[in-house]
């Protein structure tokens, strides 16, 4: 009940903000003006195979949505209504009348088709028989997602789940069209269907995409008033900056440090697009491609020593290091993203539940103390006797610099000479991490779901980070705590948001105290907006080029 009241309040608030924004714009379905912006081109525009948020940025423009994310929340677009039953387990959605650009109607079955095709291990847990379906143990007929008629579809949950967000941010996808296109789906503008604010007119791979306003889009008259869009794909920082400085582009979705230094007043910062920190492999096994093989027991013993891990953590002064190493990073001592909403709509979880487990500034004296303890426990006389410990990380500038600085700090504070950086190309590094063939790994975790649980879920026994092999083998889970598992699981069914958050905070505390994952920073994002572009918003935990109520002055 509480939940429904809350969502009603939220929905009302949404309508007001949307209405307020609408009132400002005296819109037409044709729109006017043009916007050129710099971003990274999508990997694919095949909705089913898409796994990247770059793709979602484009779908935001080309496709209608059931609920459209905007500036940290979402508002209904094609959703006419959403009715919940008494037990909070069955959601019935009714959709509005809307069409694709080819004139065909958008039906409830299109949403169902999309939802079913995008089910994965993480999202399936909510839906009735979802996990079974994903594992191939039941057919689509048993699944709790189905269309009732052309306008109505139903989503049945496995159980009343508190953090299931009924405001589904999903697209309609026509099954017949997908099957007709086969492998070619989403490769070129002609291989897509359009129902959103824009139509993709041209896609020159590796260069640019152009869009033009779609007059048949359901909210064409009162949102997305810019007529033509051009998305330039550019990966070269100085080239991007030069285009922006020359006035050729009005928006850069991501900018690097050197640009921020040159035009600080045009740049805006969003914290928390990823959590980064050190992951320790405390398990004495790795997967050699066919079977589990033992790793060097001396190294495992050192890594499994909690005092050793604490010493490494205390030796790092994050508050000092992070701003220097990564201009868009913020020092972090948490495993939950800075962006995650807290007890009220405008408070953040990490502020509502502060944690002092890991001091941001570190403590050199304590670090040395812990190292002494660790050495005594392990039976070493000095740090020079420690075995070589490999620090695995990606072969890219920021990751390399972070590794170099941490290595140098450990050497300075603790006298550690045994940390050896192992730089690998991304593909290889990820593979080594997945096969647990590492000692220390610099992990970067992101989740588009804006809830504490999505970050803690990584760490439950058998979770996708704690047990990356997904082997179910007891020795492959680097973190496993029954109390933690229980807290996270119970929180799923706790309908009081404050109580739920308290459980999450408690679980987070347990994880932090284990020192299996030592957070270093939130890797945020800078974006640059010119004076010509007004009303643009960007949110790192939501995908989309949010020009919904933006205007361009000529």
């Amino acid at each position: 009940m509480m939940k429904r009241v809350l969502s009603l309040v939220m929905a009302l608030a949404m309508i007001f903000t949307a209405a307020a924004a609408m009132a400002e714009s005296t819109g037409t379905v044709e729109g006017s003006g043009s916007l050129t912006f710099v971003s990274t081109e999508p990997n694919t525009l095949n909705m089913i195979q898409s796994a990247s948020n770059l793709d979602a940025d484009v779908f935001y423009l080309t496709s209608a949505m059931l609920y459209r994310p905007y500036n940290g929340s979402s508002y209904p677009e094609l959703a006419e209504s959403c009715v919940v039953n008494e037990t909070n387990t069955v959601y019935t959605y009714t959709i509005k009348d809307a069409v694709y650009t080819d004139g065909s109607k958008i039906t409830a079955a299109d949403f169902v088709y999309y939802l079913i095709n995008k089910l994965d291990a993480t999202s399936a847990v909510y839906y009735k028989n979802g996990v079974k379906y994903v594992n191939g143990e039941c057919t689509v007929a048993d699944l709790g997602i189905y269309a009732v008629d052309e306008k109505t579809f139903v989503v049945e949950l496995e159980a009343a789940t508190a953090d299931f967000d009924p405001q589904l941010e999903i697209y309609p996808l026509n099954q017949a069209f997908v099957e007709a296109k086969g492998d070619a789906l989403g490769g070129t503008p002609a291989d897509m269907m359009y129902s959103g604010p824009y139509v993709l007119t041209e896609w020159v791979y590796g260069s640019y995409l152009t869009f033009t306003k779609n007059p048949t889009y359901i909210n064409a008259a009162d949102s997305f008033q810019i007529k033509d869009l051009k998305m330039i794909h550019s990966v070269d920082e100085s080239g991007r900056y030069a285009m922006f400085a020359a006035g050729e582009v009005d928006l850069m979705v991501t900018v690097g440090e050197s640009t921020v230094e040159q035009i600080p007043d045009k740049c805006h910062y969003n914290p928390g697009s990823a959590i980064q920190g050190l992951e320790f492999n405390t398990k004495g096994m790795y997967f050699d491609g066919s079977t589990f093989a033992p790793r060097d027991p001396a190294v495992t013993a050192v890594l499994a020593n909690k005092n050793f891990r604490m010493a490494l953590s205390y030796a790092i002064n994050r508050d000092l290091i992070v701003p220097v190493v990564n201009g868009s990073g913020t020092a972090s001592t948490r495993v939950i993203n800075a962006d995650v909403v807290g007890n009220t709509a405008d408070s953040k979880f990490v502020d509502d539940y502060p944690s002092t487990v890991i001091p941001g500034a570190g403590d050199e004296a304590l670090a040395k103390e812990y190292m002494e303890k660790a050495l005594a426990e392990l039976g070493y006389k000095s740090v020079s006797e420690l075995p070589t410990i490999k620090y695995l990380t990606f072969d890219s500038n920021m990751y390399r610099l972070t590794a170099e600085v941490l290595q140098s700090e450990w050497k300075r504070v603790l006298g550690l000479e045994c940390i050896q950086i192992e730089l690998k190309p991304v593909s290889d590094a990820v593979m080594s991490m997945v096969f647990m063939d590492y000692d220390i790994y610099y992990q970067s975790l992101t989740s588009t779901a804006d809830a504490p649980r999505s970050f803690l879920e990584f760490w439950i026994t058998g979770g996708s980070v704690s047990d990356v092999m997904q082997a179910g083998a007891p020795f492959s889970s680097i973190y496993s705590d029954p109390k933690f598992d229980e807290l996270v699981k119970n929180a799923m069914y706790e309908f009081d948001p404050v109580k739920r958050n308290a459980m999450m905070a408690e679980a987070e505390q347990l994880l932090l105290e284990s020192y299996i994952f030592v957070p270093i920073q939130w890797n945020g994002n800078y974006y640059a907006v010119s004076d010509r572009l007004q009303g643009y918003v960007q949110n790192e935990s939501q995908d989309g080029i949010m020009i919904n109520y933006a205007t361009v002055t000529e």
Partner: protein
Amino acid sequence: MTKYIIKRLLISLLTIWAVATVCFFLLRLLPGNPFILQNPLDMKNAEKMMAYYGLDRPLWEQYLSYLDGLIHLDFGYSLTHVGRSVNAVIAQYFPITAQLGVQALLLGMPLGLLLGILSAVRRGGGLDYGCQLSSVVLTAIPSFVLAAVMQLIFGVYLKWFPVSQWLSFRHTILPTLVLSIGVISGHCRSMRTLMLEVGRQDYLKTAKAKGVSNVRVVVFHQIRNAILPMITNMGLEIAGMLMGSYIIEKVFSIPGLGAYFVNSITGLDYTMTLGLVVFQAVIVVAANFIVDLLYGLIDPRVRVV
């Protein structure tokens, strides 16, 4: 001659097949798989995608079906950019890369040869020293440094040319210049060396002794003979230029094959990489083939082979 051509054609086809085969298996030796990269924490998704692309079948079976596609000139679909066919990528990127390469060659080759000839004729003169020095200086600067400096000077400060992108002819000027600098200095130096080498040959002395004018000696004897060895390298050179330069394409944000290629290798996009390698092999082999034939036409001595 016909027999020679047929033999060469067969060898060429064999070379292309060998490249495709070696590369097919080499790529599979690279650790990791393309889908884990996109979503490192989702092994299930990776397995699903492997099955979607048939990568879970035995290797030889995949190899056979790849060869089958190759015979029908179908390179398949990209693994990392779903829906993007290799043929479409080549069709879109190759003209851009080729335009850049051809422009650089058209500018660089005649200029380089001319400077080389002039330096050799006036050996020890001011032009000779100037050319030698500047060619060495310019080759000594890494191309990404040169490109950045040119961008800064001509794009940002003087604002003569756009800094990056590939939209109009004006956009092509800076990258063409940077790319052609290597061509110019390379050709200048080797032409000068060859000219001097030829200049020492007895037939040149004979021609001079017979009273042939200096200009005639240089034009009809020295240049003609000096340019011959350069033609042998031209095949590989043209092919190299047509495949693009990763660094220059990246610095200038040019959607060319060079940059795409590197991304597809590092992204473990097997089909895309393989398709581009085979395409490149075809160009190299074809260029060598044509050069060999041309060589036979120009230099009668070679025709005996």
